[in-house]
Structure formats: structure tokens, C-alpha cells
């Protein structure tokens, strides 16, 4: 993929550009990356190569630079990658519980098996068709861990959907073997990876390998086949060379870099390229690529085919330093995670909140986008994580339909504990003055670190006002400095009466105790015909 070309393109543009910070349509609310394009070629990723490249190589651009696809408020515009949801526009409990689901799952009655999968360690049906003609992939729990992977998959889709990502519709289903009917042209991939015609024995053998409920039914997750044409996964670096809409190198996309906090929170250690999917969709007369996160069977305490490995979230699959240390010390030295004791909940697997440190959390391999995460990216992701209340977390966890209520409560408490740790760390790395808005002659704000109880309220907040020359990127002090103990500043008269098109900036700081990081938030406002508009927010890192 052409990650280098993407960076070169951007550098070229930057070099040619004279400095004008704000353009007339800033801040952009929606990116137009759904422009009509020719169909890209399906590109299936090599799982091995993906792992080797990311574990032993250093793909993508690793120079620290601010995310490229954000608007001037530091937020992610709506796009084919991302939709602002719960963190920006509160969703109701019903909406959170419904998540991406637009229906009720496979219709009752017989399901026609069209494609089976008996290869590898995760048997399942790659495609079944219900009586409505809707198609689903059917995935099972591993034997010994009934409900674990299926609940994780469903809970994961609800959370990531509410966070703003495109995800598949996942439904928990219960069925009996006689509910499955063999499709006329059903095929199965067997162990050598060959496809052959499927027969009833295949169904029987496949079901023999998966967990069963006490009443003899099978529990599975039915993942609705995504709309559109599968064109392969996206990588966490570079851009697709055959998608003209894909111009921001993925390692510099805020919604991918900012995944660190959500992934750490939910222990989505399998946040690898192979668990993403680009779909070519046709909407409103346009053909474009939509980018999805898929397959959440390996999050929380589930490792999909078994419980999460104890290493998961604490160590990459390959870390030479610790590996050689273990060799030299004959295994008598190791990291703390090896001593963690997990309660035995087979339907949950291995997850805990006491040893969890969000800043030290790691996925399976060094993910280029996550590695590029700057405090502002992680802060953006943390804001999303902390937007879930205890009750909302509980309701979403309930969608996993865990029959062991003690296990369910344990998972809820884990996620609450982990969420609080995410907040405590990342909301304190930069100035968390946020949710700024102009109300009449006042600039209102909220200090998220204080609001979420992870920092003491400061003695005061100060705002220093400056005139801003947008054409030349130059600031001139107005000699107006305000200090408040509340949550709003009075907008100076000069700003209120300025000519349309004039810019000002307020540099807001915490004063004294509370904040570990006394860095400023720069708020840019533009006088417009209708009033004062906030057009830019920058956070010192």
C-alpha cells in the first residue's frame, strides 16, 4: 500500500501552502470521502505478513505529527470511517442496546447452510441464509467456554458502534441442529483449505466440535453479512492505492490513533488489520468504500478460541527484550501479569481491572496507528470511553446474554474500573477543558478531568485573550486576562463588537492545584454575522 505516497502528497501540499490557519468552511463537520469512485480490487491480506511486518518491521510514518483528518476543533468529521455518536450526541439506553442492529437477527425457521468452515481451530458456518433471504456468518463459543466469545462479539459491536465506528450487526442466536438445512450448492472449506460440496455429515461433525447448552441447543453469534462488496481489510498505516477517497495515511487518522483508549478499555488486543474490512457500497447514487471494524470475539476476557491469554493486553506476541530476559534468567524473572489471578468465570474468560494500566496496555502486535497516538489522540479516545455511564455499561453488557449473573456483574465492575483508569490517566495528560460553547456573551466550558472525578478542581481557571491574524498566523495580546472559579468566561467587548471575519483566541489554563499538567487550551473564535463562533481548539501537549 502506498503509505509513503500519502505522506509525500501531504508534505508537498504543506510546503506549497502559505499559512492561513482557518479556512471559510472550518470547522468541517463531514468529510466528503464518500465520493463516487471506480470499484477497487479486492485485496486479501496475508495474516502472516501482517504479523511479521508489524512485529519485526516499522511500517508507516512514525514521525510525531498531529492527526491529519481532524477538523480545526480537534474532532473527527463524519466520514466513511467514522460517525460521531455517543460521546458527542448522547444516545439513549435503547439506542445503545440496539447498537448497529437494524433488525432482530435471523428469522425463525430453517436456515439454509451455504458455506461451512471446518478448517483451522474455529469451526463455523461462513454463510447461512434465513427465510427472509438475509445472510449471516455463524460463529460459536469454544467448548468449555459457552457464552464467552459470542457475548464478547455482541458486546463489542455495541460499544464500538456507540463509539462511532462501522461494525457489523451481531445477534446471539440459539438453535437446534434440525433447524439447519443444507443448501443445494453448499460448500465447505476442509482442512487443506480446499472447497468441496458440503453434506449433512459435515454439519453434524462441525456441530460436534462446538459448545452446546444444557438443553441441547447451540448458541452462536449470527453476524449479518455486511452490505456491499468485500474489498479486503484496511491496514493501520498507509492508504489504499486504489481508493481516491482514502487520502489520509491511516496511522495519522485520529479515529484510528485514538483507538488506543477504547481498545485498552475493552481489551481489544486483536486490533489487527485482519480484523477490519473495507466494503464497497452504493449509496445515494455513489459508489465508495466504507471501513469497518469486525470480529470482536477476541475482546474482553475472550480469546475467541479459548480464554484470553494472560499476556493479552500486557505484552506483544513478540518482544525481544523480555524474551531474552526470560531465556537468561531461566524464566525466574517475568512481568507482573504472570502473577495475576483471575476469577474463574468460563463465560467471561480472563479480564481484570486491578492490574490494568491503560498507558501500558498493548495489542497483539505494535499497531502503527496506536503507536502514533499522541496525548491528544488518546485524550480524544478517552473522552469517548468516559462517556459511558455505569448504567450504560451494564445495559450493553447485558446484551451479551450471560446466564451467570455473577459473571456478568464481574464484567460490568471490571469495565467500570478500567474506564475510570482510562479517565484518570488520559484526562490528566493534557488540559481537559472541553465542551466549549458560546452562550450570549460568555464562553462556557467543562473540565472533564474534574467532571469525571479524576482531578481536583483547580483554584481557578485563567483565560488570556489575544487578537488573531488568520492570514499571517500572528497573535497580538489584548491585555485582557480573566480568572474564574466557575465554568465560563466573559467574552471581551472587543470580541463581541468586532467586524465579521475577525479572529480572537483565548488561552485557558488551570491555576494551582488539581491539574498535573498546567498546559493551555487555545480556543479560537471568529466573529460572524450571526455572532461569535468557535472555529478552533488546540491543546498543548
Amino acid at each position, binding site marked *: 500500500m502506498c503509505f509513503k505516497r500519502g505522506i509525500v502528497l501531504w508534505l508537498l501540499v504543506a510546503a506549497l501552502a502559505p499559512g492561513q490557519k482557518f479556512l471559510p468552511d472550518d470547522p468541517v463537520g463531514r468529510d466528503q470521502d464518500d465520493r463516487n469512485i471506480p470499484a477497487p480490487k479486492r485485496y486479501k491480506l496475508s495474516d502472516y505478513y501482517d504479523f511479521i511486518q508489524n512485529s519485526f518491521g516499522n511500517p508507516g510514518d512514525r514521525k510525531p505529527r498531529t492527526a491529519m483528518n481532524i477538523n480545526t476543533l480537534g474532532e473527527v468529521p463524519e466520514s466513511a470511517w467514522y460517525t460521531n455518536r455517543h460521546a458527542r450526541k448522547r444516545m439513549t439506553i435503547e439506542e445503545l442496546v440496539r447498537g448497529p442492529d437494524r433488525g432482530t437477527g435471523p428469522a425463525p425457521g430453517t436456515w439454509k447452510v451455504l458455506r461451512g468452515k471446518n478448517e483451522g481451530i474455529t469451526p463455523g458456518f461462513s454463510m447461512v441464509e434465513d427465510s427472509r433471504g438475509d445472510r449471516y456468518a455463524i460463529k460459536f463459543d469454544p467448548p468449555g467456554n459457552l457464552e464467552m466469545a459470542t457475548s464478547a462479539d455482541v458486546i463489542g459491536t455495541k460499544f464500538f458502534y456507540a463509539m462511532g465506528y462501522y461494525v457489523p450487526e451481531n445477534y446471539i442466536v440459539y438453535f437446534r441442529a434440525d433447524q439447519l438445512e443444507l443448501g443445494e450448492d453448499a460448500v465447505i472449506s476442509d482442512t487443506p483449505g480446499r472447497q468441496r460440496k458440503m453434506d449433512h455429515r459435515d454439519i453434524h461433525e462441525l456441530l460436534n466440535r462446538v459448545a452446546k447448552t444444557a438443553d441441547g441447543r447451540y448458541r452462536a453469534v449470527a453476524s449479518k453479512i455486511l452490505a456491499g462488496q468485500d474489498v479486503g481489510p484496511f491496514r493501520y498505516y498507509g492508504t489504499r492505492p486504489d481508493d481516491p477517497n482514502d487520502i489520509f495515511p491511516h496511522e495519522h487518522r485520529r479515529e484510528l490513533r485514538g483507538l488506543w483508549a477504547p481498545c485498552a478499555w475493552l481489551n481489544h488486543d486483536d486490533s489487527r488489520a485482519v480484523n477490519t474490512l473495507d466494503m464497497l457500497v452504493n449509496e445515494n447514487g455513489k459508489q465508495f468504500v466504507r471501513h469497518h471494524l469486525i470480529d470482536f470475539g477476541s475482546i474482553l476476557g475472550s480469546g475467541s478460541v479459548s480464554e484470553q491469554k494472560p499476556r493479552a493486553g500486557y505484552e506483544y506476541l*513478540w518482544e525481544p527484550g523480555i524474551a531474552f530476559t526470560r531465556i537468561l534468567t531461566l524464566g525466574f524473572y517475568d512481568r507482573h501479569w504472570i502473577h495475576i489471578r483471575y476469577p474463574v468465570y468460563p463465560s467471561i474468560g480472563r479480564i481484570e481491572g486491578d492490574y490494568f494500566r491503560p498507558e501500558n496496555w498493548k495489542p497483539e502486535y505494535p499497531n502503527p496507528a496506536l503507536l502514533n497516538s499522541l496525548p491528544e489522540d488518546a485524550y480524544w479516545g478517552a473522552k469517548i470511553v468516559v462517556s459511558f455511564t455505569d448504567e450504560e455499561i451494564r445495559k450493553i453488557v447485558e446484551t451479551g446474554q450471560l446466564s451467570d449473573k455473577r459473571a456478568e456483574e464481574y464484567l460490568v465492575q471490571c469495565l467500570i474500573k478500567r474506564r475510570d483508569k482510562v479517565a484518570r490517566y488520559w484526562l490528566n495528560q493534557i488540559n481537559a477543558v472541553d465542551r466549549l460553547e458560546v452562550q450570549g456573551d460568555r464562553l462556557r466550558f467543562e473540565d472533564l478531568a474534574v467532571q469525571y472525578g479524576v482531578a481536583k478542581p483547580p483554584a481557578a481557571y485563567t483565560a488570556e485573550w489575544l487578537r488573531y491574524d488568520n492570514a499571517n498566523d500572528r497573535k497580538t495580546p489584548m491585555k485582557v486576562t480573566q480568572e474564574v472559579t466557575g465554568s465560563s468566561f466573559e467574552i471581551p467587548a472587543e470580541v463581541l463588537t468586532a467586524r465579521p471575519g475577525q479572529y480572537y483566541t483565548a488561552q485557558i489554563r488551570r491555576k494551582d492545584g488539581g491539574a498535573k499538567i498546567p498546559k493551555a487550551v487555545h480556543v479560537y473564535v471568529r466573529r460572524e454575522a450571526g455572532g461569535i463562533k468557535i472555529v478552533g481548539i488546540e491543546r498543548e501537549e
Partner: protein
Amino acid sequence: MQIAPQLCLVLLAGGLRLAGQAGDEPPVAGGRLAQWNSLREKKAQQVEAPERKGLEKALYEVRERHLMERLMAGWQGFHLGYGGLHVGSGLALGPDWRQERLAGGLVDMRASLRGSLRKYEKLEFQIGMPRLRNEHVFLDFNVAYRNYPQERFFGLGPQSRPEDRTNFRLEDTTYLGTMGIKWKRVFRVGVKGGIIATNTGPGTDTRYASTEKVFTPRNTPALDFQPDHYQVGTFAQMDWRDEPGNPRSGGNYVVEGNLFGDRNRSLYTFRRYEVEAQQYVPFFNRRRVIAFRAKTSLTDTSPGQSVPFYMMPTLGGSEDLRGFRDYRFRDKNLMVYNLEYRWEVFSGLDMALFGDAGKVFTSRSDFSLDHLEGAYGIGFRFNQAKSVLLRVDIGRSREGMRFFFKFGHVF
């Protein structure tokens, strides 16, 4: 403070030309969206299909096209097989043929032919019915012909000496049927019966004397005449290891008893009782394992009967007493203990410190922990998903240091 690079970008020439597409509001002239869209137009002129090259292409072909699996699966059931002969045979290759789910899905058939660099040969045919009664009953019939021309023999008993190493040809044909039941995937119990026809002859490894040149039928039973045997036996197994290919917890206990009857002269009839216990004790989240194995093989003969030397249990080598040569000790009875401390270096590699102790003995009255031979060492186990792919063990004993490179785990 870091400022987003796009904040210092300005409209590119051409951006103004952009108009929104169907369903879009046209971007504001000179605006951010116009700028981004101009980049899209620029990229649209350079679109190219993604292409796999070099390592990526190779790995894609191997993995996604299941080349390894297909190579192993072969064509029409035929594929290339390797290994499967005795230690010391040299590289062994040959065709394997396998057909599964024949006769309504009940029957599996397998045949293989092996030849090695040192002219070891093996021909085997197996027909099995592993899925009877909803996989609770299994039936298996196996025919094997072996011709191993350089089998090692150091003499019988614990006092045998390494410098007495000889070699002999072992040629046998075995017909063996097994039938049993499985219960809850943990218990297996069954019976077996068959016929074994054996010949021995001069060894072909010219570096060592042929066995019959150094040993005599008096101290090496059945050296001069090899009877045919019938075999009847029974076995029971309780196996609850988590991953049989690389266990970290659970246990595996096997008890087996067999009667080997001399079909020719009634001189070499004997009963053999074998017990093997494996236990795996995990700690530190199963990243450390204490693995223990105890194994014994006891042979019982009636007065006037003895055990052919080539049917006696052997001790030494990569599978039990590391630090000694393979098949270093041989006698009517055997006991061996292995203790390993295993630790995970990373998911692809485990290491182990091990200690082995064992002995062979003639009389069952010597069944004690006295006079055990010992070995110790360190091992490297390269793992695949659920099993050990390659094992490198370095063992040391009173007879020196030995390196073993083996496929699969030790126990």
C-alpha cells in the same frame, strides 16, 4: 505545542474546480473540503491496484492458498510424508495415501511407504472406523512391514557398555487389530490382538560390528531364531491433558497388558505390563509448568520362556534418558522418570530444564529406585498453535553430552 499540519495548508490550484457530487453540497470555495477533495482528485489520477510483492506475496500464497496444507494433503489422497522411522534411520521420505470418510463416512484408510538414507524401509496400511456409535466406539486394523538394517544394540542389562555398540537388521511384519470405546473424550478402554512375524539379520552399518559377531544367543535371546508371535491385550487410558501436543495442565494415565505368544517353539512367550503416568502442574497463569512422567514396562515369563532381545523395552535417547544414546539400554524391564520445569519465553518458544532417571533390569525384584542412571539438561521447544513443532534438547550424563533435534514434544 503541536499544531495540525492541515491548519497551515491552503487551497491547492485545482481545488476550486471541484464541485460536489450527487448528494453532496458543493464545498465552499477556498475551504477545507475543497482542499481535501483536490487531493482526492489528484490521487484519482494515480490510482493503481494494490499488488503483493516479495515476502508478502510468498506468505500470502503459503497461508491463504493453504499451500502447506495442500502439500500435506497431496493429490487424490496422496502426499509426501516424512519421518516415522526409528532414530538413526537418517532422513526418511515417501508417499502417504489417505482417504477419510469412506463407506458412508465411517471408514478412514491410510497407507504409507518410507525409505531413508540408511535404507530403512517401512510399508504400512491402516483401515480405521473412528466414528462408530457417534464417535464412542472405534475400530482399527493395521498392517506394517519394517526393514530396519542398522538397529542399535549395546547388549542387555544395565551394565552394557557404550563401546560394545553393534547393529542388526530388524525385519518384521505386524497385523494388529484394536477395538475400544471412548467415554466423555477422556476415557478410552479397549482390546487388541494380532500377529507379529520377525526376522533379524546382520546390520549394515560398517562403523560398528554386526550384533551376531559380538553377542551370542545365550546372552541375547532369539538372536539365532526369531519366532512369530501372536499378541492379545487390553488397555485403558484416562487422558485429560489440555493440549496433547503441548500439555500445560492435566494428566495422561495409561495401563496396558499384552500377552505375546510364541507361535513356533513355545520358547518365547511372555506377558508385558506397561504403566505410564504423566502429570502437568501449571503455575503463574500456566506460563510455567512442572511436567512429570513415570513409566514402567515389566515383562513376565513362565519358566523356560524368555523374551526376544528385539522385543525388549529400550532406554536412552531423546524420548526418555537424554544424555545417553538412543536405545542405549535394553532389558526385560524398564522404569524411567522425567521431571521438567518448563517456562514460556514467548508464545512461539518454551524452554525447559529437565532431569531424567531410569534403568533397565532383568528381574522384577530389581524394581526399585536403586542404581538409576541419570541425565539432565536444557531444552528448547518451538511451538505452533497447539503443539510443539520442533524440539531441541541438550542432555548430559556420565556418558557425555547429547544433542537431540526432534519433531514433536517429549511428553
